[in-house]
């Protein structure tokens, strides 16, 4: 059985010291080991951004794609080989700006993959511009007078889009984050885990301290029931989505691959590629 150490490789991350993404990396490594994966069972697909580098820092199969397209690539991998555990990950710009269209549709599609967003409310890699997750009034290089757009409320958006697993966490809370990733991996469907992962270099507002002060743990809300979608929505609205924990999970909805008509039992990559003559002749006859 692989331990989290087996999920380490020799590449030294080029993240700034103190960057929240380190903990996300560690949590994925621990969660993968905890659910009993071997490194070759896991494919980490990532987007472009500081966060996107994560697939190169985990000893597993990894695909570092293009900006905003992590989800379609990850879904393609899962479609080809359903025996792989697929984790998609990237930044808030990657998933909620350029890739937002894919995010909404991946949620609706409900393929069995785990999507971890390292949400720092800023564009880190391009050196500090506003993100769709930046709060109104947030001053950045690209919004010197403060952002005049509303931040997208992704947790509410995910619930509205029909998500079957929605969670949020904070990179300081390694234990909770690891546990949520494990639950996400085990969830049979699309799981979205938004992680507040502070950018210590460009975001001087949403800092570790800020999150410690402002985040409400769902564990502390009496009687919170993550299977109650209405309650989940109400709680998010009440706390402006500044909550952490498992927000919502629907264990009844089947995953996309379980619903495909005629879909192979085996991984699609193991399909027989050659057509037998009889079948081919039938195809030809249909046009005669």
């Amino acid at each position, binding site marked *: 059985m692989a331990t989290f150490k087996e999920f*380490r*490789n*020799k*590449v030294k991350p080029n993240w700034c010291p103190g960057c929240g993404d380190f903990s996300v990396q560690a949590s994925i490594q621990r969660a993968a080991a905890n659910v009993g994966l*071997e*490194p*070759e*069972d896991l*494919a980490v*697909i990532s987007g*472009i951004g500081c966060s996107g580098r994560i*697939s*190169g820092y985990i*000893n597993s*199969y*990894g*695909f*570092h*794609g*293009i900006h905003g*397209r992590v989800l*379609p*690539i*990850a*879904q*393609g*991998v*899962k*479609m*080809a*080989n359903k*025996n*792989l555990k697929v984790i998609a990950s990237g930044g808030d710009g990657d998933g909620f700006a350029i890739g937002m*269209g*894919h995010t*909404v*549709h991946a949620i609706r*599609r409900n393929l069995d993959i785990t999507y971890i967003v390292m949400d720092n409310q800023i564009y880190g890699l391009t050196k500090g511009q506003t993100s769709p997750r930046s709060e109104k009034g947030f001053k950045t290089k690209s919004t010197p007078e403060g952002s005049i757009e509303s931040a997208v409320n992704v947790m509410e958006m995910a619930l509205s889009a029909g998500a079957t697993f929605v969670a949020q966490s904070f990179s300081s809370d390694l234990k909770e984050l690891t546990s949520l990733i494990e639950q996400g991996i085990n969830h049979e469907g699309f799981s979205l885990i938004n992680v507040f992962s502070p950018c210590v270099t460009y975001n001087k507002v949403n800092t570790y301290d800020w999150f410690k002060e402002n985040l409400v743990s769902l564990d502390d809300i009496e009687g919170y029931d993550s299977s109650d979608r209405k309650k989940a929505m109400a709680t998010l609205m009440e706390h402006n989505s500044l909550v952490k924990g498992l927000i919502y999970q629907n264990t009844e909805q089947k995953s996309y691959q379980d619903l*495909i*008509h*005629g*879909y*192979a*039992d*085996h*991984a*699609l*990559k193991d*399909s027989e*590629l*050659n*057509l037998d*003559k009889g*079948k*081919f*002749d039938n*195809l*030809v006859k249909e*046009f*005669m």
Partner: protein
Amino acid sequence: MVEQLSWKVGGQQGEGIESTGEIFAITLNRLGYYLYGYRHFSSRIKGGHTNNKIRVSTEKVRSIADDLDILVAFDQETIDVNAHELHSKGIVLADAKFNPTLPEGVDVTLYSVPFTEIATDLGTSLMKNMVAVGASSAIMNLKCEVFRDVVEEIFSRKGEQVVAKNMEAIVKGAEYVREQDKGNLHQMELAEADGKKRMFMIGNDAIAMGFLAGGCRFMAAYPITPASEIMEYMIKKLPEFGGTVIQTEDEIAAATMSIGANYAGVRTITASAGPGLSLMMESIGLAGITETPLVIVDTQRGGPSTGLPTKQEQSDLMAMIYGTHGEIPKVVMAPSTVQEAFNDAVEALNIAEEYQVPVILLSDLQLSLGKQTVEPLEYDNIEVRRGKLDEHPDLPELDKGEYFKRYQVTEDGVSPRILPGTKNGIFHVTGVEHDETGKPSELASNRKNQMDKRLRKLKKLPEVFPTPVQIDARYEEADVLFVGFNSTRGAIEEAKGRLEEEGYKVNHAHIRLIHPFPAKEVKALVDQAKKVIVVENNATAQLANIIKMNVGSQEKMESILQYDGTPFLPGQIHQRSKELL
């Protein structure tokens, strides 16, 4: 008695024009005639003039006819728009309902036939298309019974009575025309065909069938004209083979999902037209640098932007060859017949895996949608080759934290490939420049090694590619060499024949492997000709420019261009080449 004729049915879109053409054409195809169809349609579902022109012949035909013998009109607009195509002995069969008249100066025979009335008397005006089929059969002196098979296939679900009524409509239509005989019925009596069984299909059907036969088991795509039939066929057929299609949210998702699936080992394709291809450009570069096999069909239509979405054009050539930023190895193939489209679809899958590159299978609207008779596609031509992919390797344990050399520098540039999930095979993939294990690297020496390795992969392709150019060159010293690609082949062949009858020595080269360009073959042919005429459906002579770039000989090169949305007719090429010769 005639060996061939050209028949056209027209009316308002959504009025049954399609089914009239289908019943007529499928029946003739089964009788052993060769057919070649051309659909004129607009980008709307109901309303708007639409027509379907079908050439029927006892011998192989691969192009639209210059003129028209029979025009079936369901409205006056059809006559006004199309009557000028009829030659002097032409016949119009028009629904008496709209009191058809011939435009001034058009001297042809008009049969006003009560299509709608006869049909209504039999029960429903919907059968007016059957009456029209019957009327047409009388002109060609075909027995009404020949349509029974097809009528039964379409209507037997609805019961025997419906079949009988539809057959009656055909008979009534034929009888009516025979009674009206204006002395020219026998002129268009069609010579008997050989009765051989052949396929009747559009290029998109053949492309899709090729993918299926070539082992494609997954498709990710977004609907667009004129590519959608490929997706529709795959949706219908893939479940039988355990596979499936995802209709994605856009073409960027279609291309990147295909990349993910190909990376993980399933032969995956996507298909689109210009607007979709424009969206896929960044993804194509990703496939290039990550050396992930990727097959994309581009069914060209009128551009730019939404352009002429339902019209013929060949203007994506440069974009397909050069599209994506940076430099990658990429293959662009352009089949010129339905048969070739099938073979090239199989081959595109093989080449994508053997060379680990993106492959664009280029088609155009006329090839993709022109329905035509095709000799039965051959099983023996199907072959699955996956190159250096090892699906079940037995790999030695890697040193801790080390990666498999997925991008190993090799002599031919192609590296060993394994799939995610393989034990002891972990490697990284990134669109960032990387070293042999896939780890990002900005080292100058590594950059050069990896870039050279990638670009080296296709160096030999023009030599090993079977028939990179379709050559019909009988003359050592030709007056002219015609060059084209995709669907213009048939029209060029016919124009060539006419010029030869007039004493010209004409060679013809149809480029099948567009990129990397088969410069050696083409140069030899160019050298053999006094003049080179490049025939293409675009305004900027894209293929001619590619030839000039690769072969030179600017001084010999002439272009025949057409970018009004219509495919070439043989007569147009014939006429315009004579102006150049």
